[in-house]
């Protein structure tokens, strides 16, 4: 094997390694220009919201279940939405408390980082996910039934 072949192979490995690194980076991406300490502080903030986040997830699952029930139940949907609203308020309130603590710390976020945090739904590590993806698609449902 000549040196050129070895170089080609090593180059391929290097390329693969780069690609691997890119693929493994995930969708969250972090906050722009965040220091490791800031990233950790945001992670800690979200860890403190775990209970409220779980409650929102559970409430959303319940809403999904009643939405896709065999028979449409308006009262159950309303009740599930109310439960979700309560859970969302609890989560948002807790997040506000934790965020106030973070902003009072040395790891205070910049306006650009806050905007990125909002765009990430409050948790850049988790990414946005893509709720409600299934029924996307445009256009209104058919207006009427024939025959």
């Amino acid at each position, binding site marked *: *094997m000549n040196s050129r072949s070895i170089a080609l192979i090593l180059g391929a490995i290097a390329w693969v390694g780069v690609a691997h690194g890119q693929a493994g980076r995930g969708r969250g991406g972090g906050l722009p220009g965040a220091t490791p300490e800031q990233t950790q502080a945001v992670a800690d903030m979200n860890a403190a919201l775990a209970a409220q986040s779980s409650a929102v997830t559970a409430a959303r699952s319940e809403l999904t279940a009643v939405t896709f029930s065999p*028979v449409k139940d308006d009262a159950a949907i309303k009740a599930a939405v109310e439960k979700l*609203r309560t859970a969302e308020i609890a989560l*948002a309130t807790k997040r506000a408390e934790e965020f106030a603590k973070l902003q009072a710390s040395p790891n205070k976020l910049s306006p650009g980082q806050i905007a990125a945090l909002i765009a990430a739904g409050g948790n850049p590590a988790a990414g946005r996910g893509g709720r409600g993806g*299934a*029924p996307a*698609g445009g256009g209104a449902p058919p207006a009427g039934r024939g025959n």
Partner: protein
Amino acid sequence: MKNRFAFVVCLLALAISGSVVEAQQPPAGGGRGATPDPNPLSVVQQVALSREMAIPTALTAAQTAAASALVGASLTLPANTADIAAKAQALAEAELALANARATAFQRAQKSLQPLNSAQIATYSRNAAGGGGGRGGAGANWETAYYDHTGFISLFDGKTLNGWEGEEGKWDVQDGAIHRHQTLEPKNFVDFGQYHIHYNEVFSDFELKVEFKIKTGNAGVQYRSRLESGVHAQDGEPPRAPGGGGPGGGDASGVAIPQRNVAAAIADPLGKPLPPNIKTLDDAIAAGLLPKGPLYGNGTGHPWQVSGYQFDIYDSPTGNTGSLYEGQGRGVIANTGEVYRLTADANGNPVKTFLGRSSDLTGPQYYKQGEWNQIEIIARGNTLIHMLNGKVFCVIIDDDPGRRALKGIISLQLEGPQDNEVWYRNVWLKKL
């Protein structure tokens, strides 16, 4: 040694490269991932969900915006609990509107021919809530599913009539479509104005997609059909049963039109090929393959006439496009929106049993006059499903062993008076 080193390095590179590919695969959750779905959605279910679950984007956008606004309120200092409550209320209203729209749409989907079972609902709702992903997520509207040709073969190249056979000069290719402009030429026969062009292959179970556009008149897509002219009778083939009625019967006109035995034609849809020099009806008559009279009243002796199941097409907002008509057979079998089971009585006479109506209750308003329309036909076993523009138009279970066809040819047709015109394009077929 050097070679062994290179081999190991290459293996290492491939191994790493493989992990990249794996890492780039979508997550298994949601949709149809690597593991087989134990409760896969049928084609009918997918179509129904794709069509009915098309939620207005304004609703989903409102929900997304409200959720973002609430997060924004929670990340604003000083904390404003009243604003958080207001944003949460706005989000709840958006959630309610979205949930109601989804629930209403889902009820429509569940009224289709094949409602989802509880396990399918669980999977579908999980995907719906979690963002779905894979193909089963039904994230696209029905057009997306219609133009997904995965697993399909194209029967028409958009440029030539290669693979297709019809009377010479009657069909051409125009703007990427198989086209006929009706020009009646009565000579020594009554020009019944019915012209076919068939694909020269026999198919059994399949899903067929074809688009059509018609300018006045009546047309149709034949499937699981056969060449029934006597010129295609194989040597030794039994004669056609006279007078119609019963399996193997057919046209009852009494005119000595040369037609094949129906059962033999169903069993051997293409029959005996025409001699290579026979390109037109006149050729066939001149060669003595067809008698010179009496005048053929309905064209069933025409060498390119195709008989059997037909997805019927009418250029009329009140027409019966999408119905099932069986030419030279049981006639109108199912009108739009109807579900029928076909059987035979003890004497072999055909029996139609009305099973109900498709929940789509499809009507002529779904036919797009003067535009391209999308046909989908599913023929599987003894079940036939007609869909037009994403809606189920009729379903037939053919349990009549003497008349049903479990295989046959596909043919495009135009009939009717002068100046009728039809175009067919994007002919795709998937063998099932």
